């Protein structure tokens, strides 16, 4: 049997080739009639104004931070979940304490309206 890592590498390489061919092919197959109007950004026919490559809302940053905190938390939960049956009641209560601390952080985020999208 092949090692799983070998499968992942071979398959990953094939997927990259698939994507590259897919994105390159229309360059050679499709028609090419470039034009000034055609190559403008599509904003529903209105002349575009302002540069989209500018600062965006700080909101996205909050969400990224909160995600980071709680996704790392989920990562900590997985190894515990695997050995949970051997850890017994004690391990269970310990994890509840950990969750309680995180719940405080979550409550803080809610209270300070970082979970809002405005």
């Amino acid at each position, binding site marked *: 049997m092949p090692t799983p890592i070998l499968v992942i590498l071979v398959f990953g390489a094939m997927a990259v080739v698939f994507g590259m061919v897919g994105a390159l092919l229309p360059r050679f197959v499709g028609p090419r009639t470039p034009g000034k109007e055609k190559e403008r950004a599509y904003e529903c026919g209105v002349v575009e104004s302002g540069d989209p490559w500018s600062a965006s809302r700080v909101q996205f940053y909050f969400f990224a931070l909160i995600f980071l905190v709680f996704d790392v938390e989920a990562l900590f939960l997985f190894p515990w979940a695997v050995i949970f049956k051997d850890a017994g009641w004690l391990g269970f209560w310990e994890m509840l304490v950990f969750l309680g601390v995180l719940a405080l952080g979550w409550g803080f985020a809610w209270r300070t309206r970082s*979970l809002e999208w405005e």
Partner: protein
Amino acid sequence: MERLFIELKSSLIDLAAWFGVPAGWLPLLSAFLSAATIMAAAPVIMMYQTWFERKVVGRFQDRYGPNRVGPFGLFQPIADGVKALQKEDLVPAKADKLLHFLAPALVVVPTFMLFLFVPWGRGMVAADIDTGLLFFFAFAGLQAPIIVTAGWAPRNKFSVLGGLRAAAQVLSYGVPMAISAVAVVMAAGSLSSSAIVEAQGDNWFILTPWGAFAFVIFFVCVVAETKRTPFDMPEAESELVAGFHTEYSGLKFALFFMAEYMGSFAACMLATTLFLGGWSGPEFLPSWAIFMAKSGVLFFVMVWFRGTLPRLRIDQMLGLAWKFLFPLSLVTMVAEGLWYFLRTDGRMAGAILWPLAILAVSYWILSVVMMREFVRGNKPRGKQDAW
């Protein structure tokens, strides 16, 4: 039939050995065969997903759906592919040319990888590693940066916004999705997808009190992760034209489309693995057919959502993830713990009632709080501003 694919593969390898391929190359050949099979199967599944979705949504809307190309419109996806190939490859003049090419090329890669870690049938996991589930979530999360890149590259307001929204959505729903899977890992005691299926046997996890809740949470998150209706905010036509793929035409657009559909089917497969007993089912059917049938039914539910539900508002959607699904997924974990301990103590009634009770109470509290916020908004008390 049961071992059709496994036997086919081993006989091909035997054939190669007979032809004098050195033994050192055989593992590579075996890896190649597994990879090539999935590489061929996933796009075909995706093509018939689009056909199925158009047929079913058509019925929901009292029309036929595709029925011109081939019998029952079965060749429609092929015609669509040929058409996409013939389109002009439009690149906006101000775009970042390299990223505009790389984003669609790479967007399919993590979605393809998802298929490696699901058990397609008994003994049919392409990469059967102990941490398969973590790999699945890791590759599912890789979508977010690629989609932000895709939105950023064409230098278009709508696509930048769509890309950032998509990232916020994928990240937000990724957390409850992973945590509701933690409950399954607790019950199965393993992160390997085939071990999770074997741990269930005929007692599917969805039939336990915590499993029913976790499944609903997981499925809702999966629908949001793959950006399908009612969570298709990143592509909200009425607000953002086509979101992050506004500026991609032809085959490049098709690649995004493909990533989305393959992702949703892979997610249905994972939901089947985690909660619906994977490939276990009646003995007379081959395990891979059972697995595909269950995943197909889940995909039908996704299409059903699309035919039924209107789109959510973005603040409601993110609120749902953080204020409702996330805490509830933590509670399913606790419920699983109680279920396991009380059952090993032999207190069967308590094992059913306690998890149900804490789930029901937290469901009630959270939904009341969340609905109140949806109605009147989360305003800071008095004049104090939070920041």
